[in-house]
């Protein structure tokens, strides 16, 4: 087995909690964070359900202690909150003591501010600071500046697999000795842009999403940010760090089937899971639990389910669930949100339930874990897939 790269800290803000602890409590007490839209102005507020962080931008500004006329978008603010918690959790006070990098995944970057100010830029000069803030890289640099990281900083934007790819890149760079420490994850705030975009694809559910259910109607969008601190073994040793878990396997493959839809044989997902097992030097039998992508769209759950039966065998598929019915689909952040949940599963020996499931899908016999269950968990496989055929898989170990 690949020993993997040490994870020494984590941070998260999502619709079910503002910290790791609050997220854990919500998962344990089975309190999902799906509601109507309240913070964002949209004409679709009565037609969709979302996973929204119930904090206004001014509350977020205050928590971060931002100066007036700052250029943080909501995406950057929730990112900074989660990344800060991850650094504190890893007990890092001097961020530049080792070669430290920052990689964030985001899909729309600062679109939330752009769509607010776009039509007024010519008139309102003060708002023009947000013109540059739309760019995804700018969002990432707002966070890295806030943390004091000035060296290697990058942004990955592979739609809904972005954060998973950020974690993968961090692990690879540490493994190759290019860097000692990486803060990796992703952030995406709700925006009219994504609500309407997914709306045009007719894959938004008007009620709570039901992953892997035969009658699933589509996804609930969510907003969240989550980051992990990855450190080399030599740093872990020198600093005598606690290790929360390890990233032991990773892979990225492309479905090359359609611009947005996944193939019916789940080829991209199959390739990603298969390769991640190889990198981890494991077989399918070593996996105790799968945190599925499980967006609850007709297309994703079928494609992912088929891919799982190909990897594990229909009868031998380990316990699996999608936690999207708690948080909504948090797009680019999904991979790191679910990485945090995977680490919590490893730590607490709990498997978090797939909510709202009633009816088994016709196409296969797979049934997700629908109750909170206590079970020794040593290895977790987590999937994240996105537009453009992007499929990524991560494997976490104790």
């Amino acid at each position, binding site marked *: 087995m690949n020993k993997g790269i040490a994870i020494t800290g984590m941070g998260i803000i999502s619709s079910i909690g503002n910290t790791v602890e609050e997220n854990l409590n919500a998962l344990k007490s089975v309190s999902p964070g799906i509601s109507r839209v309240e913070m964002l102005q949209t004409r679709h507020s009565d037609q969709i359900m979302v996973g929204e962080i119930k904090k206004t931008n001014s509350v977020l500004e205050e928590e971060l202690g931002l100066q007036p006329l700052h250029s943080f978008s909501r995406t950057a603010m929730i990112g900074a909150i989660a990344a800060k918690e991850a650094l504190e959790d890893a007990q890092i006070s001097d961020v530049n003591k080792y070669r430290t990098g920052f990689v964030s995944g985001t899909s729309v970057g600062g679109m939330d501010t752009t769509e607010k100010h776009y039509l007024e830029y010519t008139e309102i000069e003060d708002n023009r600071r947000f*013109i540059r803030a739309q760019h995804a890289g700018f969002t990432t640099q707002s966070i890295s500046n806030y943390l004091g990281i000035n060296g290697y900083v990058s942004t990955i934007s592979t739609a809904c697999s972005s954060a998973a790819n950020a974690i993968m890149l961090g692990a690879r760079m540490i493994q190759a000795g290019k860097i000692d420490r990486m803060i990796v994850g992703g952030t995406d705030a709700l925006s009219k842009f994504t609500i309407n975009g997914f709306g045009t*694809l007719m894959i938004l559910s008007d009620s709570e999403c039901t992953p892997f259910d035969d009658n699933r109607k589509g996804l609930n969008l969510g907003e969240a940010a989550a980051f992990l601190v990855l450190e080399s073994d030599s740093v872990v040793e020198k600093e005598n760090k606690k290790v929360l878990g390890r990233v032991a396997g990773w892979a990225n493959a492309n479905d090359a089937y359609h611009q947005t839809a996944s193939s019916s044989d789940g080829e991209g997902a199959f390739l990603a899971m298969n390769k991640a097992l190889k990198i981890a030097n494991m077989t399918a039998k070593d996996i105790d639990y799968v945190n599925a992508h499980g967006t609850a769209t007709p297309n994703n759950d079928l494609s992912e389910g088929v891919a799982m039966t190909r990897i594990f065998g229909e009868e031998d598929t380990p316990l699996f669930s999608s936690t999207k019915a708690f948080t909504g689909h948090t797009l680019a952040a999904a991979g790191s949100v679910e990485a945090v949940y995977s680490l919590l599963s490893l730590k607490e020996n709990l498997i978090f339930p797939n909510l709202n499931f009633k009816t088994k899908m016709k196409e296969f016999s797979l049934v997700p874990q629908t109750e909170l269950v206590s079970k020794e968990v040593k290895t977790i496989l987590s999937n994240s897939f996105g537009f*453009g055929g*992007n499929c990524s898989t991560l494997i976490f170990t104790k």
Partner: protein
Amino acid sequence: MSDCFINGIASISAQPTTDPDMFLEELISYHENIFRCHDPNYKDYIKPAAMRRMSKSVKMGVTTASMALKDSGVEIPDAIITGTGMGCKQDSEKFLENILHNDEQFLTPTLFIQSTHNTVGGQVALGLGCKAYNVTYVQGAASFETSVMDAQLMLSEESGKNILVGGIDEIAKNSTLLHKLDGQIKEEDIDIITLLDSNTSGTVASEGATFMVLGAKTDKSLANIIDVETISEATPDEIKADIEKFLLRQGLSVDDIDAVVLGNNGDIKYDNYYKNLQSSIFSNIEQLCYKHLIGDYYVASSFGFWLACKIFATNQIPSVLKVNDVTAKNHNNVLLYNQYLGKNHSIALLQRC
């Protein structure tokens, strides 16, 4: 460090750069501060059915990718890594404007689908039927370089791979104009060729794409990428020290460098990053600039990689690139440095093979 050779390269820019037999012999002059690229005939590379929904960046990306693969003799790469500062800006802008002008009604999916940053990477994969590793980096002016760094890392993990790496950025009508509003683009139109001496703030904006095939050394190898580094933020003096450290790690000093390719873009607020080097550690080195030909955009620095390959292949330096009086006898080591608005600095060292 494992070997990372450029085995094929192609670039679309505001100049006629897609003809492999030409090296800036013919130049197009521009007199507006926002100007588009010089288009090849995209129909030669993309089937009409595939092309009907493609925005400019997808056309540029798919075409340069196809040219670079052809140049290298590789049919299907083992990974596709793309970089873009703004992504598919044209479709994003149209979709956003439709949302705002129609009060979130009557929106169609095509624009949204193509608005994601990874559209080009996905379309290249779809066109080739390539199921391999596929990632898109979006880090301002370092978007292309972070992509190259991933490829370099991948070759160190597993040699023998052929990796397609590209950078793409397009002009979008209104969003690019916004960059005039916030001072990124110069207020008054200039003759672009005079950009470097403009003495005003802001730069000029254009678009383009560069793709390369990276891998182990072959008989087609054009250059060896010795190393690439990106620095998110630094002062001009810190950059000077970073460049020296970068060279030291390769066992080199500035004296070993034959030519430097610099990203000066005529913005008096930030060109001091280059001038600080030009007047000190680079003063005895041949200095080359290119943004007075192709304008600036987030992946404009990828043009530097194309220039270095051309210099190695032709042993020529078009005089229009030269900004000092030093002429190197041989061009074996070419150093690239670029930044934008004092952020996303990149350093790359390319060596003749």
